[in-house]
């Protein structure tokens, strides 16, 4: 395994009764990157993450963290990771300081070193004012920060965060995102799953899409989003949207991608600037009251939904046989974005 690869997932399978939660996925993660792990509910994200953290074990395949097998060398793996689950319980009658103090002790910090480390972590996560508060009385956002603080106590090189922003209010979400960005700048590898895809897009260097336990896509976030930038045009009108939709239906080379309250998002078959300019000119000539016309970067949500559609299409999802160790992962779907980005 290369030194700059921190996570190596190879042909991973996990079955729960008749349900195949993880179905032969393989990917690797480079050290120092922020990786978004995307999938619908039940796609196998949490199961994969739990195997990475040694909390579950695979039925087939393997996961290595910093070269250590998660089943064979769990203690080595645990030393290197910080795990933040999507849901965790709180203790009654335990303050924020005591909670972190317990984990610091559990990680082997003693005496003054422990106190120093606790102060550092609490300062980083802005928990110092809450030190003496009972942890069961914290808000959701504060609890998430506390959980992150616990994750950071032993200064792990890899952080695995499962839906860390779920249930947070917008302010807490922004604060949390800032913390993750800070950690990324410190050189930590962050493997993060979330349903808020726009946030993942801003934070992540790489995105891993999974669906029904299978890998759908593994690639660079910027390329993924920017790849479709020229094909999506957002048009706003100052009159009835129906007029615009009728006009689009009568003109070849373009389609309505999404209808909005005061306009629509259109896809153009020809991504060139000339085609867009000509379309705008014709719209105005045909009396459409265009108030805004601009190219739009592809949203991650769109990419995700399209990938799911392609993944579930019969042509691209061959029926896999019952799990055996020799089954190879299904072929990746064809590239979503066919047009290279133009400047």
């Amino acid at each position, binding site marked *: 395994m290369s030194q700059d690869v921190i996570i190596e997932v190879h042909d991973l399978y996990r079955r729960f009764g008749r349900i195949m939660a993880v179905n032969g996925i393989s990917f690797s993660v480079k050290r120092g990157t922020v990786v978004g792990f995307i999938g619908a509910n039940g796609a196998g994200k949490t199961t994969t993450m739990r195997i990475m953290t*040694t*909390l579950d*074990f695979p039925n087939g395949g393997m996961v290595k963290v910093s070269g250590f097998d998660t*089943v064979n*060398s769990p203690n080595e793996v645990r030393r290197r990771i910080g795990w933040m689950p999507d849901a965790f319980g709180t203790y009654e009658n335990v303050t924020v300081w005591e909670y972190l103090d317990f984990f610091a002790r*559990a990680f082997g910090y003693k*005496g*003054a070193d422990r106190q120093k480390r606790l102060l550092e972590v609490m300062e980083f996560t802005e928990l110092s004012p809450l030190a003496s508060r009972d942890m069961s009385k914290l808000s959701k956002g504060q609890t998430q920060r506390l959980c992150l603080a616990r994750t950071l106590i032993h200064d792990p090189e890899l952080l695995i965060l499962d839906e860390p922003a779920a249930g947070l209010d917008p302010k807490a979400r922004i604060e949390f995102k800032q913390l993750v960005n800070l950690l990324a700048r410190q050189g930590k590898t962050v493997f993060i799953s979330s349903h808020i895809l726009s946030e993942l897009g801003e934070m992540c260097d790489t995105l891993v899409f999974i669906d029904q336990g299978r890998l759908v896509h593994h690639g660079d976030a910027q390329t993924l989003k920017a790849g479709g930038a020229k094909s999506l045009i957002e048009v706003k009108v100052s009159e009835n949207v129906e007029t615009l939709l009728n006009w689009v239906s009568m003109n070849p080379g373009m389609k309505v991608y999404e209808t909005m309250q005061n306009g629509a998002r259109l896809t153009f078959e020809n991504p060139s600037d000339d085609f867009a300019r000509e379309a705008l000119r014709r719209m105005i000539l045909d009396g459409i009251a265009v108030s805004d016309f601009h190219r739009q970067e592809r949203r991650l949500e769109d990419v995700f939904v399209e990938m799911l559609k392609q993944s579930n299409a019969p042509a691209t999802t061959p029926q896999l046989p019952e799990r055996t160790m020799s089954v190879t992962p299904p072929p990746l779907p064809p590239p979503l974005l066919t047009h290279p980005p133009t400047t």
Partner: protein
Amino acid sequence: MKFSFTHFTDHLSPVLVKELRQGLRTRAFIAFFLILQALLILTVFGDLGESLGASSKGRGGSSEVFWFFIGAALLYFLPLRGFWAVSTEIKSNTLELIFLSHLTAWRIVVGKWTSLMAQTFLFVCAVLPYMLLRYFVGGINLIEDFQILLIMFLGSACLTAFSVAVSAFNSKIATGLFSFGGIILISVLGAFITTFGRRGTSISESDFYIIFLSLGSLFLMTMLLVGASKIAPPAENFAKWKRIMALLGLVISISFMAFDIAPELSLVVVALLTFFICFIALGEEPRFIPSICKPFVRKGALGRLSGRFFYPGWPSGVRFTLCVTVILFLAASLSSEINHKSIIFTLALLASLLAPLALLKLIPLNSEGVERLGYFPLQIGLLIASYALMILAQIFNVWRDFIEVIIPHTTVAKLAFDAGRTNDWGVPAVYFGFLSAASLVILIVKMIPLDRKMRETEQIAIQEIEQEKQTTTVS
């Protein structure tokens, strides 16, 4: 490390520190502590009233109440808290977070138990002033009272270990089954001890304490190991430690025989504990993880041979059970003459352990079915069925002799309690012998592919050890 009073808690287990902080603040603990104090004050006043007012009527009523309250606290209420020790952590998803620190399953379980015992010790300390007050009121033997308190404290330690072990079972069915088995074990052990006490056998007070302390510690350690093994990650081999406990029990029992310290009692208690461990060993699924094999293969051929008895899983469990049965049989023959009954008992015991496992291995079930019809549910089912059949046979007075031996569990229970009524043991001996041998043959056949896989795993472990050596040499 130099001891510093400022950071003296650094020398304690993190789990103990956390649990004490948490436990001492709970309302239930505070309320219970205060209520007990109030009740003890009342009993001391009762003592005082008795000694002042009615000396002619004699003492005893308030003393019984005094010990009832302490007994209820130490042997019931305080051990009861152990049932939530690990289960609450599992349910609230916090146990996994602890696992990802440097704490092992063993340290977590022991930390929980120690914390509960520390709180129990606090209760015991709070009781001491009342004992002294009663002494000054008069009419009691303080040394005797201290002895009773000590025995209760030690009993509380064992029961707390049992409840902590039960709390590690995540499934309600498993908890129920383990509790059922554990309660039977505790009841049988208690019954044996009281029976021996009542009979007025030649057990001296010192011998009683030796037996109580050694076998109690064995029980306690076994329970904590069972609890730790339930929550441990698959790469940790707790089967080894549980089986070592069984062997340690055998050594203790043989030592007692050699020094003539209640040989029969110790043998029966150790046999029960040992077969409880064998019972658990036979219900384990084998795990083929190189890191489990590493400590064994490092010790060469002898280590690999010992691995055949100490790897987790039923194949090594079958070998271990056979080995333990032979040792126990030989130990029993040392203490008394080998008679037909002891041979029957050994064969019936072996059949009761192996036959259900062989039956289970013969049934072609998918993994879900196997999970549902596991070794433990099958054993408990057979036990219940055998007793139900026996009761029916007694009610209708038909096939009594036949039903008593058809399921070996009934014979084992009857002979263990020295209550076998069948005079002709010839036919059952052949039957149990055949059942044991047939089960063994089936299990050996089923073991062959698993043993092959284990040898492959050992080879991987050897390769990994070689790689580690090379890496160390290079670095």
